[in-house]
């Protein structure tokens, strides 16, 4: 019994050793190790060993925290940002430069435009045409399956996540066509899109978010996919859903492709505000505020508006009104300065102390001539104030102003 068991033990020990080797081998011989080795050879041949030695090894990844996205595509596609490999075979080709200038890898990574499974480090999984991953790389393979002429067109669906509110975007021909068709055919007569439109048809604002299972594929021949459904539906709505009242617009297959891409691009996934094209990240002043500033610029106190004094100070006697009113009204600066600092206005403005010294030395830089101009104007302002006081004291009412 013992010796039999001992033999079993040896056999098991050896198989465990073998299995360890197997696990070790599998861990260290992934798809990407082959590609990296091949790329090194490729670069050595083309640019010499020195350049090849600089190629990083191991899993590479681009992490875009803003988009909560990790893409490991550059593990195999190592030449994306190289120069001189524009015509090399994939995965060793340089990425077209112009688009990367506006969409740097560090801010957009890869799959936000191309699709695919960024986490993955094995070929079929990464290209995403696998079970349980619904975002394949939108390139030649999928384009051919749907007879899309331009193999880069499908990608426009992803581009439109951020360019959704553009009327027209450079390089997005399919989506541009589709957007034009939406206006031309007046889709909004029946459908609400982005909060505007009719209620006869379904709201399409988040059409791209509709789960794949919620389409009726029973009347489709061929592939059961959302894209195929939309294509068929745009070309003949009643054929796909017999109860539909949507008219048949007789779209060409290319138009149907474009419209399908547009509809599928309307997704709900939150995108950071700074990624959305056409959204201005500033508070736009209201028309009222603009008019007021314009009026102040035309008046006697224009100097104080031009030189930004009015950010803190009103000069009410000259019609200048500060929104913040942090500083005192400068209408009576002549006497006010005297009482606050014990100095004349002329003296103070030429050599200010306190807050004004900081402001006038860092933020508002005035030449000596401009300072003289300010002093002169402030004296006028004081004059005006006195005049207004006299006017107000008289019984006849008069409107405030100049």
């Amino acid at each position, binding site marked *: 019994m013992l010796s039999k068991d001992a033999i079993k033990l040896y056999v098991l020990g050896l198989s465990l050793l073998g299995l360890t080797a197997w696990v070790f081998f599998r861990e260290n011989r992934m798809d990407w190790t082959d590609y990296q080795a091949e790329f090194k050879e490729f670069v050595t041949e083309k640019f010499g060993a020195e350049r090849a030695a600089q190629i990083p090894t191991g899993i590479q990844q681009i992490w875009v925290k803003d988009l909560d996205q*990790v893409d490991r595509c550059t593990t195999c596609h190592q030449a994306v940002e190289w120069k001189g490999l524009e015509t090399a075979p994939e995965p060793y080709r340089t990425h077209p430069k112009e688009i990367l200038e506006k969409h740097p890898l560090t801010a957009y990574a890869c799959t936000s435009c191309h699709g695919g499974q960024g986490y993955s480090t094995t070929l079929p999984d990464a290209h995403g045409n696998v079970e349980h991953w619904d975002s394949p790389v939108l390139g030649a393979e999928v384009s051919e399956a749907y007879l899309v002429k331009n193999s880069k067109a499908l990608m426009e669906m992803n581009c439109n996540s951020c360019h959704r509110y553009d009327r027209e975007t450079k390089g997005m021909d399919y989506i541009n066509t589709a957007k034009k068709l939406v206006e031309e055919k007046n889709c909004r007569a029946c459908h609400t899109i982005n909060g505007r439109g009719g209620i006869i048809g379904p709201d399409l604002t988040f059409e791209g978010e509709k*789960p794949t299972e919620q389409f009726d594929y029973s009347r489709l021949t061929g592939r059961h996919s*959302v894209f195929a459904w939309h294509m068929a539906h745009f070309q003949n709505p009643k054929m796909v859903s017999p109860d539909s009242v949507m008219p048949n617009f007789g779209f060409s297959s290319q138009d149907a492709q474009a419209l399908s891409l547009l509809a599928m691009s309307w997704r709900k996934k939150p995108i950071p505000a700074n990624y959305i094209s056409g959204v201005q990240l500033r508070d736009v002043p209201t028309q009222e505020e603009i008019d007021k500033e314009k009026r102040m610029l035309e008046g006697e106190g224009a100097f104080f508006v031009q030189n930004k004094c009015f950010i803190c100070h009103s000069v009410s006697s000259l019609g200048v009104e500060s929104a913040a009113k942090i500083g005192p009204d400068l209408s009576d600066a002549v006497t006010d300065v005297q009482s606050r600092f014990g100095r004349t206005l002329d003296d103070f403005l030429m050599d200010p102390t306190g807050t004004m010294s900081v402001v006038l030395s860092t933020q508002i830089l005035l030449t000596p001539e401009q300072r003289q101009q300010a002093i002169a104007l402030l004296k006028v302002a004081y004059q005006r104030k006195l005049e207004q006081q006299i006017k107000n004291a008289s019984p006849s009412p008069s409107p405030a102003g100049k």
Partner: protein
Amino acid sequence: MATENISAPPAKPGTNSGFLKRFAFKPAWEKLTWTWRPETKREAGDAIVRNFVLHWFPAKVSLESLSWGYSFWLGTISAVLFLILTITGGVLMFLYVPSVERAYLSVKDLEFSTSYGWFLRGLHRIGAHLMVAVVFLHMVRVFLTGAFKNGRKAVGQNRPLNWIVGVALLLITLLLSFTGYLLPWDQLAYWAITVGTNIASSAPVFGEPTRFILLGGTTIEQATLIRFYVLHCFLLPLATLWLVSYHMWRVRKDGGLACVEKRYEEAKKEEQPAIASKTYSLLGITGGTAVDVRNVMVDDEKDKVPSSPYLTVRLAVVTLSTLVASIVLTLIVKAPLEEAANPAVTPNPAKAPWYFLWLQELVTITTFTVGGFTINGALIGGIILPGVLVLAAVLWPYFDKSPVSSIGRWFPKERKWQNWIFLLIVAAILILTFIGTYMRGPFWEIYMPWQEWEQTPRKF
């Protein structure tokens, strides 16, 4: 028998000595291929008693307890699997993030970028599935051999209690697996737990509150994930550890594996009738289970071997076999990871974890429509039937009146009927599990394994 093997080979006198001996080939080789050869039986016994891990084994053990064919070592295999799961799980705890936002991504990372992450996750997953299966088989073995019955060997035997502990351990194993099922936070996880907890909620009165407490709310969300995580990584393993220790201790208290009982029966047959004058004794007055004054004398030494190395070597064989089998399966079977959990999209079909699929099948079978009324089977199939089964399992030893002679034997004639009933239930569970796993397709329709399902729609 083999006991003589234990003594060390006689030393050859007069060979290499001193300096030369230390560098001689043979001792060096012996050092490399170190073997345990206790010089005496006492040394062999000490090796067990002194060792922290081994001391829960007896110093000597009967050969039939060690045989492969009686127990199939299923309890030991379960314990080894638990050990594998504890170790891999401990490492996984460093890598997995139990948050709704990060859980799925951290599992993707394990699959694709963490060194040996795919292996860790695969081994943990296979280990868990195997443990459910092996613990169940262990229970089947114990039932079929009547090993939950008290015999005559030891005072203070309480095998029925240990059987109940075993049933509790099976339930905890299922819960461990069930709580772990949610953690990857993919569609498979999310909907399996949805189905599972919906069945639980159909229990009268307690159902809804139980589900609410389990989920930490009314939907499966962050609160659920953290609850399942803490249960999975802390409370349930702790309970398992505690109960397994008690389970083992009880095995010792109950006089070892039930198969040794039959020797007492054999010995009893051989024994001469006792002389009447010897039947009174103080022991008779003190009472208790030891009133059988004519206690059978069994030569305890007969057929017994020292645990070291007989049991320890076999333990090593079982441990290594379990590890090797788990690793091979890990390398062959791909651990699935579906799309990220999406409450808005119900997969068709949505299935519970495989070991609960017989329950889901029962729910289907017991759901029927009479006229305009639909009777929901969740209560009958999901709560009452499994509840009755567990209760029956717990109480069975107390109603099993078969003779002591049937203990510790496979398929004894005396327990024919109860074994048949038990096997019928086991077969039903297995068949329903098979149907649920391999034959249920979209809309819970029956699909033969060779029949193709409708194609799953895709985006492109």
